[in-house]
C-alpha cells in the first residue's frame, strides 16, 4: 500500500519534472529565436519565401473553410432566431461569433494542420539529413537562417488569415441568410454594424489571432528543431505539433475570452 503510493508519487514527480524541462527548453528556444530576429534584414528574401509557403498556400483552405463555417452559422442561427422573430439579428450573431471566436480559433487549428505540420516536418527532415549540424559546422546560425524567417512568417500570416476567415464567413452568412432564407438585406448589415464594436470585438479578435499565431508557430518550429532525427521521430514530432497546438489554442482561447469578454 505504502509502496504503491510512493511509486505513484514518484511517477507524478517524474512527469512534472519532465514537462518542466520541456517547458524550459521551449522557452530557451524562443529566446534564441527572438535573439536571431535581428538577422531578418539579411534574410528578407527567405522571409518572403516563407510567407508564401506559410501564408499564401494556406489562404485557399482558410477561405473555403470560412465560407462554409459562415454558411452553417447562418443556417443554424436562423433556425434558433426565427422562433423569437429575431431573424434580423442574424448578421450580428454571425459576425460576433466569427470575429470573436471562430475566426481566430478555427484559423489557428487549420493553420496548425496546414502550415505547422509542414514546418515541423521540414525542419525535422533538415535534422535527419544533417543539414542543421552542417550549418553549425560552417558557423551559420540555424536560428537565424532557418528558424527566425519561419517564425516571423507564421506570426505575420495568422492575423491576415483570421481576418480573411471572418470576412469570408460574414459573406457566407449573408449568402445563406439574405440569399436563401430571406432575411432583410438592410437589417442584416445595420444590426451587425450597430452591435459589433471596432475595439472590443474586432481588435480583440486580431489580438487573439496574433497570440494564437505565436503559439502555433512556436510549437511547430520547436518540435521540428527538437525532433529525434529518425523517420519515426519526425512523424511523432509532426503529430505532437498538431495535437499540442490544438490543446494550447483551445485552452488559451478560454483564458483570453474570459479576460476580454468575461467581465462585462
Amino acid at each position: 500500500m505504502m509502496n504503491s503510493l510512493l511509486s505513484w508519487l514518484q511517477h507524478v514527480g517524474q512527469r512534472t519534472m519532465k514537462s518542466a524541462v520541456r517547458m524550459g527548453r521551449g522557452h530557451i528556444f524562443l529566446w534564441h529565436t527572438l535573439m536571431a530576429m535581428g538577422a531578418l534584414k539579411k534574410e528578407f528574401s527567405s522571409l518572403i519565401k516563407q510567407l508564401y509557403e506559410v501564408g499564401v498556400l494556406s489562404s485557399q483552405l482558410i477561405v473555403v473553410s470560412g465560407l462554409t463555417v459562415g454558411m452553417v452559422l447562418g443556417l443554424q442561427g436562423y433556425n434558433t432566431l426565427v422562433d423569437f422573430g429575431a431573424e434580423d439579428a442574424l448578421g450580428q450573431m454571425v459576425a460576433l461569433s466569427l470575429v470573436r471566436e471562430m475566426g481566430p480559433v478555427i484559423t489557428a487549428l487549420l493553420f496548425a494542420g496546414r502550415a505547422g505540420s509542414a514546418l515541423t516536418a521540414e525542419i525535422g527532415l533538415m535534422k535527419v539529413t544533417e543539414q542543421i549540424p552542417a550549418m553549425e559546422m560552417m558557423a551559420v546560425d540555424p536560428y537565424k537562417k532557418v528558424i527566425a524567417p519561419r517564425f516571423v512568417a507564421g506570426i505575420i500570416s495568422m492575423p491576415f488569415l483570421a481576418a480573411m476567415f471572418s470576412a469570408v464567413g460574414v459573406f457566407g452568412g449573408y449568402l445563406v441568410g439574405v440569399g436563401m432564407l430571406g432575411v432583410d438585406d438592410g437589417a442584416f448589415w445595420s444590426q451587425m454594424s450597430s452591435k459589433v464594436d471596432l475595439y472590443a470585438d474586432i481588435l480583440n479578435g486580431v489580438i487573439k489571432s496574433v497570440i494564437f499565431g505565436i503559439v502555433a508557430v512556436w510549437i511547430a518550429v520547436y518540435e521540428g528543431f527538437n525532433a529525434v532525427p529518425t523517420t519515426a521521430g519526425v512523424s511523432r514530432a509532426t503529430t505532437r505539433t498538431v495535437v499540442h497546438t490544438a490543446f494550447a489554442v483551445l485552452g488559451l482561447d478560454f483564458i483570453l475570452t474570459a479576460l476580454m469578454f468575461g467581465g462585462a
Partner: protein
Amino acid sequence: MKDKSKVELAVGVFVVAGIAALLMLSLKVSNLSGVSTSDGYSLQADFENVGGLKVRAPVMMAGVRIGEVSKIVLNTQTYEASVMLTLAKQYNQLPKDTSAAIFTSGLLGEQYIALEAGGEEIVLKAGDKIQLSQSAMVLEQVLGQFIFGKASGDE
C-alpha cells in the same frame, strides 16, 4: 528570377487581401462609421430610474443618433441616477428646455436616451444639466400596475 518575382507577387496579393479583409471587418461590420464623440461635449441628466441603460448606449434625437451615454452614477444626495451624455460637436445648439427620456428599441431591445427639443432660445452649454427627464419604463412595474388596476377594477 521569374519564379522569385511570382512568389513575391503572391505574397503581395496575400498581404493586400488580408488588409482588405481587416478593413472590411472594421468599416462594414463594426460601428466605426457612427457618430464620433471623441471631440464632443457632455451634458448631464438625472433620472429616477435608468432601468437597463448601459454606458455607450445611443443618444437619439428625432431618431437620429447624436451621441452616447458616457457615465452612469448614483447621486447620493437625491438618490437619483445621474447620467452623463456625450454629444457630437455639430449638435451643440439644443434648446435649454430640451427633455430627456429613456426608451426601449422594440419590446425587448436595448435602452437608449431620446432627447426632445424644446422652444427656448438659450442653448445648452457643455456641462449643463437637462432639467426635464422621464425615467425608463420598467416592464415589471408596468405589468404590476396593469394587474393591480385590473384587480381593483373588478370590485
